[in-house]
């Protein structure tokens, strides 16, 4: 990647414990480029007002900027603007999907199918719905390779399956799941397909048409945008049947003391004052990513992942989890050093200014599946350089020397 990209991220110029920051936790959240920070600040300085209510010019301008951002997000994923719902993040988007489908589609005795590699955000809402609706929650197995066991998934699909919820790119293993294939199978039994795309939309070209799913959720903050903004994309006809998750201002048509009528999507799902400036910031992040090109973003991620995997796999004391194939995984690597707890690895790397994640990454069942309490994860984005990956690998050797 271009040196200019690096310079767009001011935080990468700082030091930690007196060492230059090497930020390798982009799967948790990404850093923000100046154009995103500026877009949000400029909106507050120049065009800020509440949306959807005001008849005055400033409100109309703010509304225009908000809707413009929706259009940018829609264009990024090949959707129509009316299909893009702004939420506060992936978690809210998945809860909106789960609570809505729970009400409209799931009956007692029905089944909801997830996978063993789900982030808690795409597991717990379905647990709740299953429990409250008297439905059964099943999980498709993960193979030792870190790939989804498609035979197991097929075996667990039945006409009773009303929802299949799965992650596009695993936040731990990096596995890229064959969503289109799964969606086709799920649709054959009449199930709705919900996709957690929090780790895919920020890193690779995603077209919701090609994906074949019915509802797709992702976050702004992992794709160079602000925190507090996320997206639920939904097929028009499906969104039209879903009830709102949050009721209140700005999502209704007519309100009486005893009843109310909901607005159409996407407004129906955006009760209360939405994260307006954050939406504008997300629009700027989309512009930034598209200027680089999602193909180029993906290539850069693959190069860094290849470099990290080569280094990790060459060290016999390192266990790598996931496909170990840069072309088949997201821009991240999960691993452990033999006999050393991930928090010790993360703390010692931090002393050298290197930020990686150690823990269960909000995927406890997946770690249990691999028989480990936790793992280390290094993850990348457009601003990560090959030099940083090499620094990480040599620092990892010093951790090993220190603790072995």
């Amino acid at each position, binding site marked *: 990647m271009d040196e200019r990209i690096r310079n767009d991220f001011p935080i990468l110029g700082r030091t930690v*414990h007196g060492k230059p920051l090497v930020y390798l936790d982009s799967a948790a959240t990404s850093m923000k480029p100046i154009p995103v920070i500026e877009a949000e600040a400029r909106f507050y300085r120049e065009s800020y007002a509440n949306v959807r209510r005001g008849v005055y010019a400033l409100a109309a301008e703010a509304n225009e900027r908000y809707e413009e951002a929706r259009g940018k997000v829609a264009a990024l994923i090949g959707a129509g603007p009316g299909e893009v719902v702004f939420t506060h993040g992936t978690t809210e988007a998945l809860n909106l999907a789960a609570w809505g489908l729970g009400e409209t589609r799931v009956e007692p005795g029905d089944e909801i199918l997830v996978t063993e590699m789900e982030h808690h955000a795409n597991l717990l809402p379905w647990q709740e719905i299953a429990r409250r609706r008297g439905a059964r929650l099943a999980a498709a197995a993960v193979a030792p390779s870190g790939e989804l066991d498609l035979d197991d998934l097929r075996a667990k699909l039945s006409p009773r399956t009303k929802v299949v919820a799965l992650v596009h790119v695993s936040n731990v293993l990096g596995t890229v799941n064959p969503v289109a294939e799964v969606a086709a199978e799920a649709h054959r039994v009449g199930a709705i397909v919900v996709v957690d795309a929090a780790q895919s939309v920020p890193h690779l070209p995603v077209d919701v048409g090609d994906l074949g799913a019915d509802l797709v959720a992702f976050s702004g903050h992992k794709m160079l945008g602000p925190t507090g903004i996320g997206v639920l994309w939904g097929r028009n006809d499906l969104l039209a049947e879903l009830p709102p998750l949050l009721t209140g201002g700005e999502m209704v048509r007519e309100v009486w003391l005893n009843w109310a009528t909901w607005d159409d999507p996407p407004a129906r799902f955006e009760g209360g004052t939405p994260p307006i400036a954050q939406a504008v910031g997300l629009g700027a992040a989309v512009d930034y990513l598209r200027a680089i090109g999602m193909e180029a973003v993906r290539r850069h991620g693959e190069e860094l992942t290849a470099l990290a995997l080569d280094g990790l796999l060459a060290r016999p004391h390192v266990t790598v989890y996931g496909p170990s194939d840069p072309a088949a995984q997201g821009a991240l690597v999960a691993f452990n050093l033999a006999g*050393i*707890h*991930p*928090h*010790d690895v993360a*703390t*010692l790397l*931090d*002393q*050298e200014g290197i930020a990686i994640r*150690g*823990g*269960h990454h909000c995927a406890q069942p997946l770690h249990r599946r691999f028989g480990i*309490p*936790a793992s280390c994860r290094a993850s990348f984005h457009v601003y990560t350089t090959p030099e940083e990956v090499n620094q990480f690998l040599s*620092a990892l050797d*010093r*951790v090993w*020397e*220190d*603790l072995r």
Partner: protein
Amino acid sequence: MSGYEEIILDHWRRPRNKGRLPDATGSAVEANPLCGDIVRLEVKVQDGAIAAARFTGEGCAISLASASLLTELITGKPVAEVERMKDEDLLAALGGVVKTRLSCALLPLRALRRALASEGPPRRTLPPSEV
């Protein structure tokens, strides 16, 4: 690499008082579900003092070293004195712990406090199973 304090590495590599205490008078398990750290601390109180203390556990170097050091610190001490032990005392004995890892370092102390609170007559011998 600046790394961990030597005392942490030493207790992690050569844990003291590791194992079950068959005639314990007090015992407690504390776990940190965030990282999977788990520590069982057992004490034998005799004549108002800690006659013996042992731990078992799994987890990171800091939590295990802290448990090991803690058993050394309290053995032979009057219970009243051990009960007055503050978080800062243990952290200082460890040579200081980075603030992001305080919960790991203090896990064994939380177990000790509960073990002392649970103190009662000596138990019958338990099978020497791990935590």
